[in-house]
């Protein structure tokens, strides 16, 4: 499209310039030659009049005027000769009067729908004035033909420009667009994408390299997925035995002597923490390998919070609902969302001195879940970092034990990302930190 427009503008300007220049030049040429002629005739007439020529009419006719022109002579007695003096082909009055006042006149004017050139020469020595009027029909026709040809040429060039543009875009731009959209597909997780490179040899090397890269990436992802699944089995099997055995011991507490009892309690607590850690690590590894699957359902936010909060085991929390928040409907994976809420609350308890407030809010097309804590807040320069893996908050909370390995918030970020949402931390009004999760909601 741009090509066509450019070509059109260019050729149109060219045409206009050419036309104007030609027109001016041709006109000038014609004017000069006719002027010259007229001056020659005028001189002749003057000489004849000086010599006392009696027959004006014969004089005029003998001057063999240009084809398609009229001339006339003004003498004290009046006008002699053709129609310039009177009739439909008369020159403009202003011209005649200026001529008679003694000024040379050269003027193009229109009469009877035709362009004409009037050349007037005053002959003060013999008290006369000579005027010749030439019809410029041919010149006019020539110019018209020229103009039409230039218009056609301009249109042709524009059409050619459009065709060239389309050809160029097909050959050059589309393949490039193909490469870029293939790259975007890969970035979004579709590793099967390959280019099939058209007949254009310029792009063959790009196509080859791209396909190599895609294949390598896919192989790496597959290896990671295999690792994740192998590791999963190796970690979960011993855990199964640990969890089951500990439960049997715990069920028979009453049979155990005090020392054994303490040992069992420690064991139970540690196995629980360890299990939680393993789950987090496996989840991270699945997310990295791109094999995490998301099971989206229509979730009613209020109902969800009613079920999710009690699982945090920190006692009842009063949830505040902003207008319309409780009835927000989300497309969400319940289990992942539950992890998000649990991890945020856990984080507040571990590092923020306890949860102070949980507030839900509605925004156009979105819903927000905010968890506020009682801690010192998060410094502005750390607010991105804390969502990274294995980063632990500097500030301790009330509970020191098992502060975790620093995966909680990064998992929150990943789960939220899988939902197409966002999470960030800001300062709460009361001085602590406020973690906000924003998710798309049905309008």
């Amino acid at each position: 499209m741009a090509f066509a427009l450019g070509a059109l503008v260019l050729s149109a300007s060219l045409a206009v310039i050419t036309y104007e220049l030609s027109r001016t030049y041709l006109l000038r040429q014609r004017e000069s030659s006719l002027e010259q002629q007229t001056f020659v005739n005028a001189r002749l007439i003057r000489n004849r009049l000086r010599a006392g020529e009696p027959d004006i009419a014969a004089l005029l006719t003998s001057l063999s005027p240009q084809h398609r022109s009229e001339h006339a002579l003004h003498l004290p007695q009046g006008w002699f000769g053709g129609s310039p003096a009177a009739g439909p082909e008369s020159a403009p009055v202003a011209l005649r009067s200026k001529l008679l006042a003694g000024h040379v006149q050269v003027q193009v004017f229109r009469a009877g729908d035709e362009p004409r050139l009037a050349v007037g020469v005053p002959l003060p020595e013999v008290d006369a004035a000579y005027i010749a009027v030439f019809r410029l029909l041919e010149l006019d026709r020539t110019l018209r033909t020229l103009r039409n040809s230039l218009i056609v040429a301009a249109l042709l060039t524009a059409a050619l420009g459009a065709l060239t543009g389309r050809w160029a875009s097909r050959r050059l731009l589309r393949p490039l667009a193909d490469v870029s959209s293939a790259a975007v597909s890969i970035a979004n997780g579709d590793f099967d994408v390959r280019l099939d490179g058209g007949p254009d040899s310029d792009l063959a090397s790009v196509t080859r390299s791209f396909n190599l890269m895609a294949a390598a990436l896919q192989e790496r992802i597959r290896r990671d997925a295999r690792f994740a699944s192998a590791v999963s089995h190796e970690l979960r099997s011993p855990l199964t035995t640990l969890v089951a055995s500990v439960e049997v011991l715990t069920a028979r507490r009453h049979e155990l002597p005090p020392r054994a009892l303490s040992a069992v309690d420690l064991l139970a607590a540690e196995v629980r923490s360890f299990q939680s850690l393993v789950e987090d690590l496996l989840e991270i590894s699945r997310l990295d390998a791109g094999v995490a699957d998301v099971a989206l359902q229509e979730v009613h936010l209020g109902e969800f919070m009613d079920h999710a909060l009690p699982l945090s085991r920190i006692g009842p929390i009063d949830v505040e609902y902003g207008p319309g928040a409780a009835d927000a409907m989300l497309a969400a994976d319940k289990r992942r969302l539950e992890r998000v809420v649990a991890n945020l609350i856990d984080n507040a308890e571990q590092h923020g001195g306890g949860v102070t407030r949980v507030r839900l809010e509605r925004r156009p097309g979105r819903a927000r879940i905010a968890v506020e804590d009682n801690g010192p807040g998060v410094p502005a320069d750390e607010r991105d970092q804390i969502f990274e893996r294995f980063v632990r908050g500097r500030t301790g909370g009330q509970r020191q034990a098992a502060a975790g390995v620093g995966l909680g918030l990064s998992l929150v970020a990943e789960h939220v990302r899988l939902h197409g949402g966002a999470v960030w931390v800001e300062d709460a009004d009361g001085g602590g930190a406020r973690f906000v999760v924003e998710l798309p909601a049905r309008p």
Partner: protein
Amino acid sequence: MRTEYGVGARILIVEDDDRIRSSLRLALEEEGNVIDESTSAEEGLPAFERRPSDVVLVDLMLPGADGFELCRWLRRISDVPILILSARSDSHDIVAGLEAGADDYVVKPPVPKELAARIRALLRRAGRSAGTIGTLRFGDLEIDPDAGWVRKAGAAVSLTKTEFRLLCELAANPGRVLSRETLLDRVWGYDYFGDARLVDVHVRRLRRKVEDDPATPDHVVTVRGLGYKLDK
């Protein structure tokens, strides 16, 4: 030994890892169950045939034939509730296991108390919420929740216990839409966070058995965004 509420059930555990098998045995025996053990699918099938248990616990990763195969073998000879034990929570494994005939799944490590609860739920008798005695009729389908049979166009249909319970639950609410959450609770005993895929796969399995054309069901109808219902 077998009671209506599943306490003290006979459970067959098919698991090749010795320690897992032993610890699960210990834990489930604490809950009053009787345990049979097998270390492979090839061993488990004949063990079941000799002494059918109330529930079979199948590990997906077994030497020789895998857990999916065992599910299919068992389904050919019995409608016994099958619980698969998986080390991976991948969609693919879970759905494949359910399609192979399992009634429910648990991801390792299972919390034994929860495992016992799952087993109890699987052993619950169908028709408790039916409230009616006698046959229910839906088009060419006849269902007797108490007696425990289903007939389609006069011919007996063989359903697993869970499929039957699902059908009875829908039949007890004729023409009413039941949400996945409701069905998960009533048939499997799950709370709000239960896996909706259990319902979806079982509906698929049910349709294959009771519909003329499973792709365009007349009886078990999906109501988009809401759930399922049984139409006359």
